[in-house]
């Protein structure tokens, strides 16, 4: 067996490891093992690459790796669970950037002899540079939005869609020129710069509430860029791994879209949530219904004497970092014999499954976390639905009001509970900027304030009863 066969087999082992890693993710029990198998697979792939016969400059490559590994490890350990969406966006961008740079470097290496690049390789280089560049810049903008370095609300200007469409068309035209025409370095650099610009312009108009969709889409993009790199270098492990990620990201993207009952096009181009809708502090609507504000002590009594309480967490819980306090409150209630579960909407938070991770961090056993389909039939038997920092995912307009922008989106039917308590910072509309009639429902009481402070007060109130 030749050395290159051995290397190819090592890459096959990597592919198997990655597939197992994803397979093991079907249950939280085996998932940690799966992740380690995946890491092992990655180590095998890196070792096999170093074993390639014609690899030069091994020392400098190794030094770069040894220097940059702790940076990644530190970031991964230091990040708070509430900041996970930003972290994922950042790592995603970094991967996309790497793919674009590989394409750039490879093109520059082979380009001095025009005509030497075969068409299929040239196409792959262009795709890798284009998608990688978009993914890098787009992810960084998503990161900046989630980290609140720039405004989370959509940034729009007249003619935006046309500008984006023209830019994309120009980039594709440029790529075709490079593939069939003069294969000049400058053109490829221009392509990468254009892709970066497009990535920025493409994510800017997308609102913060749609970030779960954007992040999974960019995740898919980086996967595709990696797969394209595999075609450049004729490397199967890159093709397969990149495509696994591409499939995963695409699937998640579609899933998120379905959970919001909106098409991908609507999410990407709809500039959803740009409406600085309605009078923000509207405390009364046309029927004279008004918001009822209440005190923490009253809510504490409601909770303590309930039989069944369902907690509905949203992004506000993440912002306030209130997950540990919520769990402490739930513990107190459970000691009093109250049944506490958590109802998790698929798009609650800023990335798919965000709430599950936060509550897991707070040591909530995962069997208590109910998905939407499981949670909804329970609300009619629920005494108190405690909505913490969630808004759009409990908005009954999605069910009842055909004119609402979120009409048709499946929601958690908290209004079917005996009573609803909404913990909210203020009457400002949520990220999507839509009024929520739930707040005006006679069953609903509002407890204004920071989620963490409010939950602490509730726990104090329950303790004193």
């Amino acid at each position, binding site marked *: 067996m030749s050395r290159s066969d051995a290397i190819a087999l090592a890459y096959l082992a990597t592919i198997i490891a990655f597939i197992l*890693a*994803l397979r093991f*993710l079907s*249950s939280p029990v085996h998932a*940690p093992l799966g*992740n*380690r198998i*995946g*890491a092992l697979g*990655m*180590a095998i792939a890196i070792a096999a690459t*170093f074993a390639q016969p014609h690899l030069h400059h091994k020392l*400098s490559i190794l030094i*770069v*790796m040894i*220097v*940059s*590994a*702790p*940076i*990644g*490890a530190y970031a*991964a350990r*230091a990040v708070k*669970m509430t*900041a*996970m969406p930003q*972290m*994922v966006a950042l*790592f995603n961008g*970094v*991967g996309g950037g*790497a793919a674009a*740079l590989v394409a750039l*470097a490879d093109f520059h*290496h082979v380009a001095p002899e025009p005509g030497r690049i075969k068409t299929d390789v040239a196409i792959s280089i262009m795709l890798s540079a284009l998608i990688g560049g978009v993914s890098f810049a787009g992810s960084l903008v998503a990161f900046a939005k989630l*980290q609140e370095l720039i405004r989370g609300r959509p940034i729009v200007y007249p003619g935006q869609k046309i500008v984006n469409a023209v830019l994309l068309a120009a980039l594709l035209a440029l790529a075709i020129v490079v593939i069939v025409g003069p294969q000049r370095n400058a053109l490829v650099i221009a392509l990468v710069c254009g892709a970066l610009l497009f990535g920025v312009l493409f994510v800017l108009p997308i609102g913060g509430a749609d970030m779960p969709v954007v992040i999974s889409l960019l*995740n898919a993009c*980086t*996967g595709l860029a990696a*797969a394209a*790199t595999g075609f450049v*270098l*004729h490397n199967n492990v*890159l*093709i397969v791994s990149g*495509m*696994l*990620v591409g*499939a995963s990201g695409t*699937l*998640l993207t579609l899933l998120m879209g379905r959970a919001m009952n909106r098409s991908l096009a609507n999410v990407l181009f709809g500039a959803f949530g740009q409406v600085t809708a309605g009078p923000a502090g509207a405390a009364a609507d046309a029927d004279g219904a008004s918001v009822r504000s209440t005190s923490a002590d009253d809510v504490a009594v409601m909770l303590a004497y309930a039989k069944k309480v369902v907690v509905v967490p949203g*992004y506000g819980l993440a912002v306030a970092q209130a997950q540990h306090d919520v769990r402490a409150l739930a513990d107190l209630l459970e000691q009093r014999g109250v049944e506490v579960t958590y109802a998790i909407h698929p798009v609650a938070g800023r990335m798919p*499954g965000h709430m*599950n991770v936060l509550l*897991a961090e707070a*040591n*909530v*056993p995962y069997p208590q976390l109910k998905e939407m389909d499981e949670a909804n039939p329970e609300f009619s038997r629920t005494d108190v639905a405690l909505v913490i920092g969630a808004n759009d995912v409990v908005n009954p307009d999605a069910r009842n009001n055909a004119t609402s922008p979120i009409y048709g989106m499946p929601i958690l039917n908290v209004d079917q509970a005996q009573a609803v308590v909404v913990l*909210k910072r203020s009457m400002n509309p949520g990220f999507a900027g839509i009024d929520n009639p739930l707040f005006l429902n006679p069953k609903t009481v509002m407890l204004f304030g920071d989620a963490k402070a409010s939950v602490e007060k509730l726990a104090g109130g329950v303790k004193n009863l």
Partner: protein
Amino acid sequence: MHTSVIVTELTVLVLAIFVGVEVISKVPTMLHTPLMSGTNAIHGIVIVGAIVVAGLPDQTTWVRVVALTAVALGTMNVVGGFVVTDRMLGMFKQRRKPSAELPAGGDGSVDAARSERKAAPAPTERS
């Protein structure tokens, strides 16, 4: 008859799509965040491409700098991706263990050290 490389590669690509969809559709909603960060780590495989290009003979300085930057980005992607996924998955428990703190494991290329959450720049976004 020999098929050309590109055809074989396309075959591999298409099969990978089917495997991906098959495997990932079995992942429960609860684990979608770890799935994202796990696949994030997996697309770090682009580091293999970065190493190959950085290791080409007779490079210009420009190619060398670009390729080594790609190696650096790829390394951060791989190490960070697997470590953060490991941390996250360590938190999912079926039953509550009092004061169970997460023992975080490492990945293949960096050694595992026990660690605890430290203060990181927190999001200050309001809903």
